[in-house]
């Protein structure tokens, strides 16, 4: 089917659910794209407290306060309590719903984002502690219409089924490749002084390094193949993987 025929049907699930619920008479509060921060307060903060990219919080903050975060290269200020997690700021205050809430307890990986290039669980990160750091979410990986190579690899290798864990899987995979380039080891690395390189990264290494991201559809073969492709390896086709397993089984 030509791709342009899909476009009229390209309503998002979120839009559809919103319409459906509105039709049912339920009030919808859409996520605010930008919180209505008191501009004067935010400006005062940036002039008084932001020095050398670090925000000082040297006197106790109780209740809501303007917090300035750098997300996907953009500086955004939200008014939040100190107890609000980065995940909730992204989803509920900034409308960046690509990052998913799965378990909300650091067990599933769906909320994975990059902070200063390192993958972390945004559900276990207090937003106020991320001031002055550079946060990258799934929305920040593509360059305009050009997908990040890891995103493209997930599409080409069926790296998902329902897609809910996918933003976390992709962010984790992007970080994984950088870690390999930096020479990071894993629990299955045979010689700690000689960690694998992208070309020699084994399936066992990829699985171990992605163990912090669960996929309840169990699309793991496709996820591993996606990482293999993004690492510059030639992944086996899904059919080949199935055949091997049938023969082995």
């Amino acid at each position, binding site marked *: 089917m030509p791709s342009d025929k899909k476009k009229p049907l390209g309503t998002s699930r979120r839009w559809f659910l919103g319409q459906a619920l509105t039709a049912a008479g339920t009030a919808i509060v859409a996520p605010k794209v930008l919180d209505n921060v008191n501009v004067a307060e935010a400006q005062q903060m940036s002039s008084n407290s932001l020095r050398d990219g*670090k925000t*000082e*919080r*040297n*006197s*106790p*903050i*109780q*209740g809501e306060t303007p917090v300035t975060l750098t997300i996907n290269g953009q500086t955004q200020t939200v008014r939040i*309590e*100190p*107890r609000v*997690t980065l995940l909730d700021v992204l989803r509920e205050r900034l409308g960046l719903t690509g990052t998913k809430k799965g378990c*909300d*307890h*650091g067990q599933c*990986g769906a909320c*994975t984002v990059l902070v200063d290039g*390192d*993958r*972390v*669980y945004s*559900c*276990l*990160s*207090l937003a*106020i*502690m991320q001031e002055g750091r550079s946060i990258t979410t799934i929305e920040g990986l593509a360059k305009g219409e050009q997908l990040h190579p890891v995103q493209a690899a997930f599409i080409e290798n069926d790296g998902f089924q329902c897609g809910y864990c996918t933003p976390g899987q992709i962010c*984790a995979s992007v*970080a*994984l490749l950088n*870690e390999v380039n*930096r*020479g*990071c*080891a*894993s*629990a*299955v*690395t*045979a*010689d*700690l*002084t000689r960690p694998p390189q992208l070309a020699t990264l084994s399936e066992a290494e990829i*699985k*171990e*390094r992605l*163990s*912090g*991201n669960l996929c309840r559809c169990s699309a793991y073969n496709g996820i591993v193949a996606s990482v293999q492709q993004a690492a510059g390896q030639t992944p086996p086709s899904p059919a080949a993987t199935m055949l091997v397993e049938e023969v082995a089984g």
Partner: protein
Amino acid sequence: MKNFAYVRATSTEDAVQQSQTTQNAQFIAGGTNLVDRLKVFLDRPDRLIDVSRLDLKQIEATKEGGIRIGALATNTAVADHPQIRRDYPLLSRAILSGASQQIRNMATVGGNLLQRTRCPYYYDPVFACNKRQPGSGCPAIPGINRMHAILGASDSCIAVHPSDMCVALAALDAVVEVESTKGRRQIPFNDFHRLPGDAPERDTNLEPGDLITAVILPPVSFAKTGIYLKLRDRASYSFALISVAAAIDLSGESIRDARLALGGVAHKPWRSIEAETFLKGKPATVETFQQAAEIALQGAKPLDHNGFKVNMAKRAIKRALTISAQGGGVA
């Protein structure tokens, strides 16, 4: 999560001072365990003192030939540090076998020492728990105790310590450096964590207002043969049923020195000095390792659902010592 005030400490002195003078304040660094506990109301501080930006991240060689690890070094930074990989592979491997890369990127060394148990009864406020509410009882003792302690438990608590890193630190004779308003002091690793006794609400011997500033490792001749064997319900991202930190220093065919510590068996990382003493001077054979395993598990008291841990621990010890005697590597 209960609301709390938030403040960023400007220095270690400022942090301990604030902690001393503020009612019901807690430090936060990586937050991987604390934020989770805040969410289920296990911890309800009035103030969080953010120590994550303090200047305590350095990992540096000591003039004695060991290494000093700043309390705010992330678990990832420690596991991947060239000197630690080379001289203390046991520590690298223990860290890498724990949690996930995301958690290890966030979690700090100081915070790892202060992880609290993952006993499901502790986490679920529907149940009583002597650790959560002293004197309320321990439903794990007559309950589902498959994950629980086989060594050093008490009538009030059978929880186990969850850390892998700490099992390695116990075997490596680490020292914990602590700062308080009274000054700086050092705590030998074996005296840092506590057995539950009748005060399971206290995991460590830290006093209120103490801040961990570093972990110091002495040089050890055999550290390169140190290995970490972790057995668990799934291959990765799972707490240990049994783990073993082992190191053998061979002189020809006989054992000059040995280290042995267990995880998943007790309220604290369980170092078996008895087994280590037995091993010294013995030939490095499977029979010797078998006997050492028997000695290490001598006092084991299995519960209704964790009897399997006794044999599992013995076999793991035998395997770990064997691999270490062969020069180390992946367990």
